[in-house]
């Protein structure tokens, strides 16, 4: 399974606090997403060069991430800087973790495995966003988008009637419902496993609290639909909308 070129969302920005880490997958491969204490996000291969344990189980100390197992510490460039069992050792520069380009946009953390020269521009957008949640589903990304299409939602802020899902580019989609605009980051975790990162494009003054809860309810309904199997999926969307 290979990863499509371009940028991939790996988490909502707000889901990774400074000084914390989490594991994730892209096309079946394991990655660790972590934020150093200065707030900068990093996406690396989730594999400690020492014995191959997951770095996402480790912990962040300043601008180093430390492996849980034997405490090897890596700097933000992925280079091993400290080995507790040999505290005086000048660690060889060859002990490194593969690191990937990482940006934050649209309220999400993005990465790409593309080599520098043929790297596309990262997703656009530095407008204000309000995070909702990430949905994890046991289906491919197409199945996830089909479920979104079949899952009409009521807007939090009323506006012109209508409902539109459009692809901004690559893995980023925009859903417009009434006066609301949502940004949907589609992550391919594996063949039959995907994630949808949902953020509201708008100001916290309008959406913080009740607006977030409104869209979280939609995500839960979407999850229910995805988990409910084909019998429910075959029902007309209008009936589903009423049921919700």
């Amino acid at each position: 399974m290979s990863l499509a070129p371009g940028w991939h969302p790996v988490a909502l920005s707000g889901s990774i606090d400074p000084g914390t880490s989490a594991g994730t997958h892209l096309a079946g491969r394991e990655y660790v997403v972590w934020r150093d204490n200065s707030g900068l996000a990093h996406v690396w291969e989730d594999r400690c060069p020492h014995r191959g344990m997951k770095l996402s189980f480790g912990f962040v100390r300043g601008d180093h991430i430390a492996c849980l197992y034997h405490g090897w510490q890596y700097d933000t460039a992925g280079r091993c800087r400290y080995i507790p069992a040999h505290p005086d050792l000048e660690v060889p520069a060859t002990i490194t973790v593969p690191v990937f380009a990482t940006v934050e946009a649209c309220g999400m953390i993005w990465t790409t495995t593309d080599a520098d020269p043929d790297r596309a521009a990262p997703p656009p957008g530095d407008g204000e966003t309000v995070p909702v949640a990430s949905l994890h589903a046991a289906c491919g990304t197409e199945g996830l988008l089909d479920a979104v299409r079949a899952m009409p939602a009521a807007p939090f802020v009323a506006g012109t009637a209508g409902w539109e899902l459009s692809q901004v580019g690559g893995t980023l989609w925009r859903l417009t419902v009434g006066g609301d605009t949502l940004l949907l980051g589609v992550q391919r975790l594996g063949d039959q496993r995907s994630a949808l990162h949902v953020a509201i494009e708008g100001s916290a003054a309008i959406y913080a609290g009740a607006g977030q809860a409104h869209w979280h309810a939609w995500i839960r309904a979407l999850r229910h639909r995805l988990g409910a199997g084909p019998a429910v999926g075959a029902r007309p969307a209008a009936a589903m909308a009423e049921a919700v």
Partner: protein
Amino acid sequence: MALVLYNYDLDENCYKVRLALSMLTIEHEIVAVNAFPGKEQETPPFLAMNPMGTLPILKDGDLTLFGAEAILAYLSRSQDGSGRWLPADGAGFALSMQWLLFAAGDLSVATRARANALFGTPGDEAALRAGARRAIGAMEDAMTVNGFAGQDWFAGPAPTIADVALFPAFVLSRDFGVDHDEYPALRKWARRFRALPGFLTMPGIPDYH
């Protein structure tokens, strides 16, 4: 006479009580029970205190209590002058009870999943894991929604014994194959919990410091 906790270090229900004793700074004695391999809690002297043969058991003078959640309720009502660990107001009390009962009920599948994974106790591994995932998913949803309202804890604006009762199942979930990657709201909550005064770990919970 001091409180006495009949304890087994590797039992996450005993851990709930050890956490509460430490966080509420309650003086106590600990009696180590040979639960494994001895099954001492299933012998007559222990069955006299808890007919179900489980731990923890708490003795306070003439009072004998079993069941971690009931013990937490007792400790907070009898020993916590601030009253904040088991709020008295209707909603705060009911939400605390809701999550305490959830911890002892719906979430207990996590304890069984862990025992199955670590000690090979009987059970359908896939069903146990799915049940635990569902209960932990319900916790994630609850804390996500609480977060929208700026509420950092399960039953209100401050930590309660509900948080104590819910903590072990989540923090130990990797033992039964449920990792934390898909639960950002619970990761943040667990991190806040770990920073509370009196927090202590149990075997299996890495101490980051």
